[in-house]
């Protein structure tokens, strides 16, 4: 052994994951280490979010075990449209909710919590929107608010579910840039879920392909996974990977009839 490997933050071993009694996927092996940037990719309804929630311990495993070497501070960013914008909360109030689990019952947020909230908003570039209504924000600004809420708890692991769903290309790029900058800034590990490989291939260091319909759960480094074998297994057809101007482009090959 050479240089010490980064410590494992959380891992699943031979895990059966799913809701109810019947597992969606079995034999899931997944390990997240400090500084990781893992993207879980697969079709909608393929089980990505289920794996993520099982990894976080929010969904009990049906078999196997979850390894958590020490208590872990987690930040969670749900899909934007899972958060009901009818609530009359400001961006600052939404972010402050991220401090709730760390505060403990019967403790109210104090000046230190408000400061942490304001800093989190500034880190994602919307420090000036703290007093604005969450419902009045654009899709990209809402996404940044939810990321800031996750950051407010000073997490070691940031779990992000479909952050660029329904965004225009410019908002998608700037949201992914925020995540990249946060990851580059320190020891923050990022695990994100996306149904679009091209949206994450230029940011992630490792990939997991997830599709319970076809019994696929495959994890590897970006180089291992962006190959014809794993890709055609995931998409069920030939897929071409090209590097253009330093960016990966992933496209299904139009072979004969679609």
């Amino acid at each position, binding site marked *: 052994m050479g240089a010490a490997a980064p410590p494992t933050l959380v891992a699943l071993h031979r895990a059966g994951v799913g809701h109810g009694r019947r597992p969606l996927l079995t034999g899931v092996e997944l390990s997240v280490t400090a500084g990781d940037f893992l993207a879980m990719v697969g079709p909608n309804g393929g089980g990505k979010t289920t794996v993520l929630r099982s990894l976080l311990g929010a969904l009990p495993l049906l078999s196997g075990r979850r390894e958590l070497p020490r208590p872990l501070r987690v930040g969670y960013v749900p899909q934007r449209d899972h958060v009901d914008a009818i609530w*009359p909360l400001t961006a600052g109030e939404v972010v402050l909710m991220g401090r709730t689990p760390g505060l403990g019952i019967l403790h109210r947020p104090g000046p230190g919590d408000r400061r942490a909230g304001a800093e989190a908003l500034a880190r994602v570039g919307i420090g000036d929107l703290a007093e604005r209504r969450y419902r009045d924000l654009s899709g990209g600004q809402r996404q940044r608010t939810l990321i800031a809420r996750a950051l407010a708890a000073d997490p070691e692991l940031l779990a992000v579910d479909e952050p660029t769903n329904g965004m225009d290309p410019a908002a998608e790029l700037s949201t992914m840039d925020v995540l990249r900058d946060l990851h580059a800034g320190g020891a923050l590990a990022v695990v994100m879920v996306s149904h679009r490989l091209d949206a994450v291939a230029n940011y992630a260091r490792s990939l997991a392909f997830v599709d319970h319909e076809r019994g696929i759960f495959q994890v590897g480094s970006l180089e291992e996974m962006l190959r014809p074998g794993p890709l055609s297994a995931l998409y069920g057809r030939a897929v071409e990977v090209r590097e253009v101007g330093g960016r990966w482009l992933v496209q299904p090959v139009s072979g004969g009839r679609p």
Partner: protein
Amino acid sequence: MSGLGSFLAAREIWQSPLAASVLAGALLGFLGVYVVLRRTVFVSAALTQISTVGLVVGLFLEERLHVEAEHAHHQLGMAMGFAVVGALLLGALRPRRLPAEATVGAAWVAASAAVVLGISKLVHASHDLGGMVFGNAVAVPDDELWMIGAVALLCAVLHLAFAKEIAFASFDPETATALGLRVRGWDAVLSLTVGLAIPASARALGALPVFALLTLPASAALLLGLRFRAVFALATLLGVLAAAGGYLVSWFAETPTGATMVLLAALALLPGALRRAKA
């Protein structure tokens, strides 16, 4: 001034119902903010009917089986049991094959029919259907007033102590769960408070005013575009004004009490609606 003079002279008659209206208005106005924001307005309507079934069952047991249930707290206990179990069941039972509103609609319509059937089988005419559903708030016995007060106090303590947990679990249960909050537990605390507040108020005010006070003050406050905490404060105040104001107006104008409360609460929607129309 003779109207006012005779009103003041009749203090013995109105003081308990008026106090009950103030307490119930505040309680339902406050809880209504969660009811409206969580999109569970019709859950509260169903729960009101389910708790009324509890009242009718209590009266039925007393009349037919001679089970001791003549005191208000016996009947209220029965209504509360029904409402709390109903709230927990409606929260827990979410069949995948049905939209949530279908379950809630089924509960509401079945409970409403049970109330009508149950009352039709009661011999004593004193328990009329109109009073149960639309409210008469004429006589509120002392033990019933105490019960409303105790429920209001319990709800106030729970919601003051656990405000941030209940708000987080209601606003974004997915994230709250991922961060380790016991969302089902906090939901149960909220369901418990709503499930106690509805029957405690419904016996004095009637089912329709209770539904109105859970819906209209919160909607009026939300329409005004206030901040989160201010919405709770204003909804509580509007609940008191509609309930107590409705009682007083009905006294002087000799109108039906429950319907007067409901109409006053509905009037509270106007400023926010007009403001939105202008904007």
